[in-house]
């Protein structure tokens, strides 16, 4: 996808209009600094994050950890990897690490491991100060973030933590809903039988409710703040 500075400009305007806090980083350092400053300002101890090539590219996890922030990977595969000291471990070893982490005896079977991971992660999201996810692309006309996934962890990391930050590649912005639909149609489902990924979320601005008089713009049930960090790396 080609860089389109016009799209970035439009995107910025629309996202700000709907209450997102938006920052465009021209270098990896700027991006990391933005997040470190946020973490510091909000006194965030724990970050949950979903798989993100952009985060990996700027060494985000290491930087956060170096600054004393606990970073928890939320895709089960990565979460297990993290538990196993960053390497691929056999099933019985995985079961053992989960057992020792949770204090519960886990069978070395995929189903038991999956269940245990779900249980542990469920509590993790809501207790995290910050959720970091990566959008697959943005929609300029409405300032929308689009994320495609099969696992469901990115949606939870986006909805449950106190603050949510999305990384968006400045090259990945489409003009409008119609272009978004085109892109989605050209994305394989990734699971047999799926024509499109299991979960596709369009996130536009910050969650709100009109249900209580006088609180139209207050936080409803999602994060208190939505940050969008556009990486327009030179």
């Amino acid at each position, binding site marked *: 996808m080609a860089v389109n500075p016009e799209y970035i400009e439009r995107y910025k305007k629309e996202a700000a209009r709907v209450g997102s806090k938006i920052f465009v980083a021209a270098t990896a350092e700027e991006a990391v600094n933005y997040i470190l400053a946020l973490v510091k300002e909000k006194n965030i101890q724990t970050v949950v994050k979903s798989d993100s090539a952009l985060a990996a590219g700027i060494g985000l996890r290491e930087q956060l950890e170096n600054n004393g922030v606990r970073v928890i990977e939320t895709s089960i595969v990565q979460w297990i990897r993290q538990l196993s000291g960053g390497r691929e471990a056999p099933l019985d070893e995985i079961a053992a690490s989960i057992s020792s982490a949770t204090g519960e005896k886990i069978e070395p079977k995929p189903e038991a491991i999956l269940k245990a991971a779900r249980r542990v992660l469920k509590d993790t999201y809501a207790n995290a100060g910050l959720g970091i996810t990566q959008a697959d692309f943005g929609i300029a006309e409405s300032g929308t973030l689009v994320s495609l996934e099969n696992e469901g*962890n990115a949606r939870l990391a986006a909805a449950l933590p106190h603050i949510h930050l999305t990384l968006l590649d400045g090259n990945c912005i489409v003009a409008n809903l119609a272009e978004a639909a085109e892109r*989605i*149609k050209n994305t394989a489902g990734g699971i047999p039988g799926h024509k*499109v990924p299991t979960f596709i979320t*369009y996130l536009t601005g910050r969650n709100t409710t009109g249900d209580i008089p006088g609180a139209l713009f207050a936080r409803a049930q999602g994060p208190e703040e939505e940050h969008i960090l556009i990486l327009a790396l030179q």
Partner: protein
Amino acid sequence: MAAGIKKRIKNALADNNLQTALGRLAVLTKGGRRMGMKGIDFEVLRNDLHDRKEKSIANLPHLIQQFKENAAAAGAIVYEAGDAREANEYVLRLARQHGVRHIVKSKSMLTEEIGLKEHLEQAGIHVVETDIGERIVQLAGERPAHIVGPAIHKTVDQIAELLSRVTGNEIGTGSQELLDTIRDSLRQSYLDAEMGISGANICIAETGTLVIVTNEGNGQIVTTLSPLHVAIVGMEKLMGGLEDANAVLHLLSRCCVGPRLTVYTSFITGTGSAGDIGGIPLCGGQGPRELHIVLVDNGRSELRNSPEFRKALYCIKCGACLNICPVFASVAGQVYGHIYQGGIGTILTAFFHDPQRAHELSEMCMGCLACRTVCPSGIDIPRLIRNLKARKVRKHGFPLLKRVAYRGILKSPSRTESAARALAKLQQPFLDADYMIRKLPYPLGNLTDTISLPGINSSLLAGRMRSHQTPETGTKAKVAFFAGCVTAYAYPDLGDAVFKLLDECDTAPYYPAGQACCGAPAYFSGDSSTGLTLARHNIESLLLMEPDYVVTVCPGCAAMLKNEYPLLTSGDAALHKSALKLGAKVRDLSQLLIELGSESAEKATGGEIVTYHDPCHLKRGLGVFTEPRKLIEKAGYELVEMNDPDACCGFGGDALLTHPELCGSILKRKLDNIEATGVNTVVTACTACVLQLRGGLDRRKSPIKVVHIAEFLAKESTK
């Protein structure tokens, strides 16, 4: 059953909390609509959505098949429920199989419709509503008051009191504190829940996808965190592809509260996966392990098979029609007594719930057409309401009073005139010196509850016009004047004004003999046969002398002649052709004066400040609203706009007889808006509006004069 409709209306109007809470609706929705319509061509988008909905509903059986296949291939389990009972039992069975004790639920009108929550609760399962408004309503033991804003009828104080009672803690009235209290309690419910229930806004057949929109974020959590997700979906939500979904998304949020898109738009296709560990697949992800989609019929097939009502299925539940409905603004949703509110709710109630009750609701409609202009799916809701009334008349006949009034009197012009003469005598004891009637005896007392009525003029128009029944011969444009009942019997002076203005435009006005009531009162009460008889009669009388134009001073009549006669006569090819011919000649007076380039309005001095009230059927029925304003300004007046100049005045057809207090409440808002402008004169362009506004201002003993634009301009031109 709840209290009768009249009682419910009365209670709602007397409920100060409700009235305070409702004040918020107008502010919220007016700003929202303005924001929502910015930068789009609404007509283009809505035609597109209408066509896509039309196609989807036509193709429904095929789409269901396609959806089932694709959803199943992606791991969902689709169940088709014929009615409420089947849907409820399916979900309960499922809950039992999985040992579910706690359920979280996001907003779904359909689950309200089928009573799912109650069904599950009776079986001992704990169900928590997670939409904040729904939760408030649930805690209060009530039903949603608005399809989009369930708790729109509650004030902050009421919510604080409720939460204090439920939590046992003193909760302050700060909005944020109230929100925090609810949010925190919901967080635990999400974690505890073994099942999440949602609705869906759209189902995409091509991919087997559910589309769910929420603003609060609860939808995301409910549909992801619980091990079991059950989506309860009305089958009318099915559409073909992503493009169709986009057509809905383009308008749903804009029409509902204004923003371009809802905060969360979620597309869910089957069940997910977390991939594999060391080549061994993890059979599932972090979302639900099972996804059940219950496609509900519950009256939708019947609706689909009823050509007169089918379009009700195009509804995307945006709530725009409620936001703009003057009846809703007076009484809110609970008055409707079932689940669905407002005009569209009346139709849905008829098919999904109780036709009898729906007939009752249909009598609340003012016929103001406001809903029709805002509906993103292009549903002509007022027409559906009329069809419902007609269906009732077909099935159950008319009550005696209406039968006498419409079929006995109105249907025949000579009898109408005799009746008017008789009434002109009978009214004497009730007539005040200024020719107003302020108090009628039982059983007509209703009529003078909220307004004073004009007396029937003893010098009826037809008599006065006897010498003007043919147009002057020559080359001037022949303009037939169609008076309408209110002019003919209450305000015959208007006839003189019209002739004067038309003379000044160098046309040849005349008053076609034999013209009768346009038939609108009967027709819109569901009496199509009286409507047709009068249509036939008027088409003949009005076309007899081959006029160039047919002019009216009552847009209700004009809209009837122009828009309804062609529909009414569709069964008779020759008559239909004449109806179209007549329709093409029909003009409202202001429209015609502008079209003829009226010279009657030389700039006058004085420049009194006046305000203008848009009659519903002139603005929305005929699309005429700049013309009267131009004429007023051309006449040298300064026009100040009132707040909501095009809001209904409460002269609401049937409702005037059945629910005068409701009409009174709508009138009150209009009069408040008029008075707030500080003018001495309000101009309008409809005889019925004149009657209503004069009657109401008289009750207030207000010095503000209400003038029909015909008289206003005619008086001006003599200066």
